[in-house]
């Protein structure tokens, strides 16, 4: 249940950033750095917007919440933990390399961190 809810929240945040990216609309921002982060070199990975990768990851995690057999739980844990580690690196990039903070990215960082914990705890139920 927690994995499904958090995945849905993460997908909503990532979906908003994907929407803003492809419609070239300005991201709503109270931290003042969202556009700087979204237009930085770190906002793409091999030409693919990081927001798109995030959306894909959250939808995959949502799928693992619905399909609860063991392999999916293991795959979900791998995806969530790797996502959290990568999010940690992107947080470092915001703070020390780009020198700007995107509030949507912070929300996503918290969500993927909680998802990593939830997905690892979910392994115990097997």
């Amino acid at each position, binding site marked *: 249940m927690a994995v499904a809810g958090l995945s849905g929240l993460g997908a909503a945040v990532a979906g908003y950033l994907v929407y803003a990216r492809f419609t070239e609309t300005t991201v709503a921002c109270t931290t003042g750095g969202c556009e700087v982060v979204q237009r930085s*070199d770190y906002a793409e990975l091999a030409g693919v917007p990081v927001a798109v990768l995030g959306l894909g990851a959250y939808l995959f995690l949502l799928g693992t919440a619905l399909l609860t057999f063991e392999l999916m739980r293991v795959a979900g844990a791998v995806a969530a933990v790797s996502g959290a580690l990568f999010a940690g690196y992107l947080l470092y990039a915001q703070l020390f390399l780009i020198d700007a903070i995107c509030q949507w990215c912070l929300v996503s960082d918290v969500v993927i961190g909680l998802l990593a914990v939830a997905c690892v705890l979910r392994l115990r139920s097997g």
Partner: protein
Amino acid sequence: MTRRTYVTVGALAGLIAAALIAASILGAQGPEPTQAHRVSGGDTEALLDGIPQQGGALGRPDAPVTLVEFADLQCPYCARWSQLAFGEIVHDYVRTGKVRIVFGGLSFIGPDSDEALRFAYAAGDQDKLWNVVHLLYANQGPENSGWVSDELLRGIGAEIPGFRTNRALDERTSPRVEQAIASAAVLAERHEVSGTPTFAAGRTGGMLAVLPVQSLDPEGVRPLLDQLLAR
């Protein structure tokens, strides 16, 4: 779930995260410019030769339309616009006397933005700002990596015929440069610029309005400029 499963999850997650981080770092660094590409003054000279420059403005002062480009010289999207659209817009609109482009330089990405911006505005005192801007975009390095070194700026200056590089380096902190930076910041604030590149345009001498530019190729601004010219 066995201990082995946890180890497997941790190892796989670590590997995937390491691959993602490595790809991100490589992507942020971008391709290493070759020496031939590093400073390409000839292309810039051919593009801008014969077009009047006055400080931060490129084109005839009596051009019917003024286009302001708000940009950060470290912004990769600004460099992409410079690469994809600037040449064609200059050829079709500026060289023909229809449009005057004004540089609205901002420096919000970091220290290298400020270094580059100061040098560009100092070059404006010699009416060579757009040569420097074009060359800085062509040689853009990873954000805040220290790529805007005096060595790079000297290399760029050496590629611009008649340009006095030492004078520009000395004038980076001059009151005129400070004033130009402050004026651009005020103009950007007035137009609520929140990202770069942002373009504002209007009939010369009249009010400027932010353009709803949808792409970074020439077609992103061409119909908007044509509309203004048709008024």
